[in-house]
């Protein structure tokens, strides 16, 4: 029997429903795929079946089609490929025989349809991304009005327009494409025939957007292919920001070179002022003692390997003298209090001898954690490095800001480095007051330096010099 060709004409608007209805009818009648000639772009929506001499409806099969196919078809009908309707119907024909086909992800027919589905999805996604509205004068309703011109690869405006209706519900807008035009007025979405590219008025926001686009770009990492794979050149002529792209790429290398060549500059004057306020008497960030101890307790919940806990200073909150040592030792770490070990005892003894009331001073350390290496049962003291001094300074500065001592006694190299920025030449600098950002600082050696001297005679001399320094401090404060 000769195959009689039946022409099915589908309208440009409402293509998805029209194809589904036609496919259902023909499958029900048992029309073979090769007998159907599908045509798109019929002007009227009603004219579903072009062939005037349609065979009378036969006995309709009970049609059950997997839901997954309906979803697939609903997307693929918007593809630009003229074969799309025929491909869908041919697959549907096979599917009727073997419903499991829809899950055979390696079937060539299905793979092709899935590919087309992906193309349409991507095209719709790019439409959501790249439509650019321009503000046009408000109409009589008082709602703001916007218009856009867009050229999609596939027929995606109709399935995508509801997205814009959900998103921009309080505006009136038009999206025109060569294919069809979507119009949203007072909350109602309608479709009309396509248009030529309209002449839209200038919109001042595009300049701001261009500024944003140029400045969010990092010239140090140009990756043009990554950009064009996601934002293909075919879209550029309708994107207001795209005109900046050639200039940005061309200038990037020079900008990076200039950035590298520029020498580091000195911090602005403001920086020192702010740093001082942060560290010192500023009212904004100064914690009270209670908050500082809370913070220390919080930090102490997790103590890094090779370190002790944070030990804060102690003494009167308004002490005229602050004594700053190096870091807590083994005994201090166990007690959670500063200067209770051998060094502390030496300090106590010599301070009493020099007439300096140690209990009237606030005693603390430049670095707050005991740093050690474990040797058997003993924890051996390790000197703090620059980073640790830096970190300890945060705490120390808070303590200084709270106590506001008239004089700070810095004992040893670490305290000197923390408070004056340098530890060099300590033995020459000791016994004198140095003016610093943190106020006057009196330098001397650390008691542990004396304790470690092997020669008893030198030890005695040094103890005396230490006592003299403490006496000098007492005289300064008197």
């Amino acid at each position, binding site marked *: 029997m000769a195959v009689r060709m039946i022409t099915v004409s589908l309208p440009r608007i409402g293509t998805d429903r029209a194809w589904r209805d036609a496919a259902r009818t023909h499958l029900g009648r048992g029309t073979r795929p090769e007998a159907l000639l599908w045509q798109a772009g019929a002007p009227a929506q009603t004219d579903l079946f072009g062939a005037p001499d349609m065979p009378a409806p036969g006995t309709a099969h009970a049609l059950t089609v997997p839901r997954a196919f309906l979803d697939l078809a609903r997307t693929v009908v918007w593809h630009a490929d003229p074969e799309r309707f025929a491909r869908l119907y041919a697959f549907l024909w096979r599917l009727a025989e073997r419903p499991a086909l829809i899950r055979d992800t*390696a079937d060539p027919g299905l793979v092709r349809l899935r590919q087309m589905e992906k193309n349409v999805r991507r095209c719709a996604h790019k439409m959501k991304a790249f439509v650019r509205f321009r503000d046009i004068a408000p109409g009589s309703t008082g709602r703001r009005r916007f218009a856009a011109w867009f050229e999609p690869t596939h027929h995606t405006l109709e399935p995508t327009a509801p997205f814009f209706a959900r998103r921009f519900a309080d505006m009136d807008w038009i999206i025109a494409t060569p294919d069809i035009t979507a119009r949203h007025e007072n*909350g109602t979405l309608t479709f009309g025939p396509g248009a030529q590219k309209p002449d839209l008025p200038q919109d001042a926001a595009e300049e701001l957007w261009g500024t944003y686009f140029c400045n969010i770009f990092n010239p140090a*990492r140009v990756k043009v292919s990554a950009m064009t794979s996601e934002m293909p050149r075919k879209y550029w002529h309708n994107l207001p920001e795209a005109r900046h792209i050639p200039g940005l790429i061309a200038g990037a290398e020079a900008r990076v070179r200039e*950035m590298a060549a520029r020498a580091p*500059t000195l911090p602005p004057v403001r920086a020192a002022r*702010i740093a001082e306020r942060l560290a010192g008497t500023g009212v904004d960030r100064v914690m009270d003692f209670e908050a500082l101890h809370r913070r220390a307790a919080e930090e102490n919940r997790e103590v890094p390997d090779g370190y002790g806990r944070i030990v804060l200073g102690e003494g009167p909150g308004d002490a005229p003298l602050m004594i700053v040592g190096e870091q807590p030792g083994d005994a201090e770490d166990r007690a959670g209090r500063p200067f209770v070990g051998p060094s502390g005892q030496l300090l106590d003894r010599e301070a009493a001898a020099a007439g300096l009331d140690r209990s009237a001073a606030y005693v603390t350390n430049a670095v707050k954690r005991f740093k050690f290496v474990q040797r058997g049962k003993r924890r051996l003291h390790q000197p703090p490095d620059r980073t640790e001094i830096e970190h300890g300074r945060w705490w120390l500065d808070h303590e200084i800001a709270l106590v506001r001592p008239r004089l700070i006694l810095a004992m040893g190299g670490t305290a000197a480095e923390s408070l004056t920025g340098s530890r060099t030449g300590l033995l020459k600098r000791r016994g004198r007051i140095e003016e610093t950002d943190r106020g006057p600082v009196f330098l001397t050696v650390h008691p542990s330096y004396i304790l470690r001297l092997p020669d008893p005679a030198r030890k005695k001399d040094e103890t005396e010099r230490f006592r003299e320094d403490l006496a000098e401090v007492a005289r300064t404060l008197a």
Partner: protein
Amino acid sequence: MPMSLNEKLAILSDAARYDASCASSGTTRRDSRKGGLGSTEGSGICHAYAPDGRCISLLKILMTNFCIYDCAYCVNRVSSNTPRARFTPEEVVHLTLEFYRRNYIEGLFLSSGIIRSPDATMEDMVRIARMLRVGHGFKGYIHLKTIPDAAQELIDEAGLHADRLSINVELPTEQAVRAFAPEKSPATIRTAMDRVQTRRAAAKDRSHGGKRPPKFAPAGQSTQMIVGADGSTDRTVLSQSTRLYGSFGLKRVYYSAFSPIPDSSALLPLIRPPLVREHRLYQADWLMRFYGFGVDEITAARPDGNLDLALDPKLAWALANRHLFPVRVQTAEREMLLRVPGFGTKTVGRILAARRHRTLAWEDLKRIGANLKNAAPFITLRHWSPGTLTDSADLRARFAPPAEQLSLL
């Protein structure tokens, strides 16, 4: 003369570009049909791409780039001479809404330098979010960069308005944070993350009457780590992210290759780490989250604890574990298929579906979308066996680019 909006925008977007995140996905579905403006529908949309290959989804700006902190890696640190500007909250709201109406963006990613105090700064940011959500009925995406030291109540309110909250851990180790960001404290950052996670969990519990509390940061929280500013190895970086994903339920950890910044601090290394390192870290991150790999497995291939820059981490792992290959595609377990180079999660899903219907051959896998160039030495199929290829000595050379090309990366 006061600065124009355009000038401020130039300075404050320039200052924001070092934040990698631009995600606008994963939040609740909502739209404006019942009033207001905007919608979010699950997947994010990238509205434009800059020539650096990064997507532009959100209006990513700083409220101000004045800052009282002195973090060495940051262009906005107090000791830098970068030009400064400050938006009023009204200006941020205006820009967000006008850009949104023209379909330029999905929403706002607001960050800020610390001005006056952490609380004062956070308060202004929350005010902007409140103006958008409550004053203008804005339904688009809002991402707020939280300030770790800010008061609990402010972060609580921020989570009610924002889709995502983020706090940057900045650097992979505590030592590095101490050295480069003296005013920031890793412990405070952890506490703040923990707080957000607790609030998010609490917002999912129904009350006795079955009522749901208001949503709290429905798109979760994320963080960013700068890679290459300190000496941390990839293993350190990835272990830190594993901890972050595990302890705080983070949605994403972003890696940002330390990028030379204008007027940079003398503390920082002068060499720029290769961008490919950042890329490899993202690949490894993906393998840990979606492919069942552990940190140790991924970083075991090289003794120095860094990833192989010439090979993607999955391929590097397979080359180091050839005794597990070739894999029989027709019968292998899902977990093993996921470990085959060239098979992604989608490919594996399709293989599992298709092999119930047919015995898979080379052509089938090609149609399914597998990368057979990478997979070939590691699989057996109908009519395909790699033979001695799997164990051949020069297999690595097939994949790694020739050595002289490396210098270009």
